[in-house]
């Protein structure tokens, strides 16, 4: 069992109109975890609890072995956090910010910072107020990356970016993983980004974790079965099937725990399996949120 970079168990936080309910979240060291969920699902609250910025009502939070929020001061040296609402000094240059952070964090890697400047197409002489949205995001990320933190926590790092900037950022995030023992947690609406670079996936909706596991295993469990249902044949209810849409003689069944026996069971019932398709994370995301909401309401 490898060490955990982040270990949440039974975490609860109640607000007037929203509650995080019994959050269990484990990220093994050396891995990237993508946190996916609709707006208002609880992604940012979860991230803020991990950072010790918001205190949980109940439950255990350990980050790089530090108990949070009690040991957040010690933990902060090893954690790099970036979010959209990060404040930089508008009238100062990026270079001024780099010098500022360098004085605080002993791990600052000046050569790496210069390399990132070049790769992100930024200039140290630029004042923050003159930066575009994409440049701001990249500047914030540069300031965090060059500290070489053991754990990177990024709240929506690619939201609102053009495809080129997104690509530059994803490239730097995967490059971090060349060094073993470093970990990343990032939240995103962009399922494609998550599918591309995550080792682990966590789905969160309405303050609850719906699924949290190895990405490859996860993608492997979901399948779409295209069926031909002859007249008079009724499709059986099968375990692992989360939804069936039927229109005339054609039906589509969605499985969240696929195994070849499922296709055989449909064939035995008299239906014909035309095709078994894998699903993208985006398709799984939508199907999963709908299914879990139906489950809760049922």
């Amino acid at each position: 069992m490898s060490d955990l970079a982040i270990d949440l168990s039974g975490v609860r936080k109640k607000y007037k109109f929203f509650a995080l309910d019994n959050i269990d979240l484990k990220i093994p060291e050396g891995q990237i975890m993508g946190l996916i969920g609709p707006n208002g699902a609880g992604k940012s609250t979860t991230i803020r609890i991990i950072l010790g910025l918001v205190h949980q009502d109940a439950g255990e939070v350990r980050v790089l072995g530090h108990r949070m929020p009690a040991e957040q001061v010690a933990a902060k040296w090893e954690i790099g956090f970036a979010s959209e609402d990060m404040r930089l000094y508008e009238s100062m240059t990026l270079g001024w910010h780099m010098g500022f952070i360098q004085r605080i964090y002993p791990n600052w890697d000046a050569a790496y910072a210069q390399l990132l400047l070049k790769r992100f197409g930024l200039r140290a002489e630029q004042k923050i107020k003159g930066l575009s949205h994409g440049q701001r995001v990249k500047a914030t990320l540069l300031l965090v990356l060059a500290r070489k933190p053991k754990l990177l926590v990024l709240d929506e790092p690619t939201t609102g970016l053009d495809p080129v900037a997104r690509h530059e950022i994803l490239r730097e995030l995967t490059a971090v993983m060349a060094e073993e023992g470093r970990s990343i947690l990032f939240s995103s609406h962009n399922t494609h980004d998550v599918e591309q670079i995550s080792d682990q996936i966590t789905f969160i909706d309405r303050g609850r974790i719906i699924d949290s596991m190895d990405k490859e295993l996860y993608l492997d469990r979901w399948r779409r079965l295209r069926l031909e249902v002859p007249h008079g044949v009724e499709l059986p209810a099968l375990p692992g099937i989360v939804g069936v849409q039927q229109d005339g003689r054609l039906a589509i069944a969605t499985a969240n725990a696929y195994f070849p026996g499922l296709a055989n069971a449909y064939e035995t019932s008299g239906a014909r399996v035309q095709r078994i398709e894998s699903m993208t994370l985006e398709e799984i995301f939508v199907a999963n949120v709908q299914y879990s909401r139906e489950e809760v309401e049922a």
Partner: protein
Amino acid sequence: MNGAFVISQSDKRPMYLQIMEQIKQRIAVGDWTEGQSIPSIRQLAVDLEVSVITVKRAYLELEREGIIVTQQGKGSHVASKPGLGARLQEQELEQHLEQATRLAALMGIRPEELENRLREAGDRITEKETI
């Protein structure tokens, strides 16, 4: 660098399958030869800008198929089996044939008819080459 590896977004197959296919192609065309060491999982993940776990899955499956060998602490290399290139081409042919058969069934084409079509396709190719 592994610059010529490209994960296609319009390719509907999972990423690990695409990586497997591209490694097989490198072996089939002779760029990666028997016994040659290949990039570490972590290195290829960085080069391809995909997660480590996806490359790990591709390597595991390739190992299961006997195409590469991974040794703990020593990295991976192309398996030393004679005729590997030919075997990979054989597999590819198999896949294309299956695909054609499936499509034919969907279109209601009978197997005998499909055989004829295949012969015709062969004739067309020979024709083109003689022109």
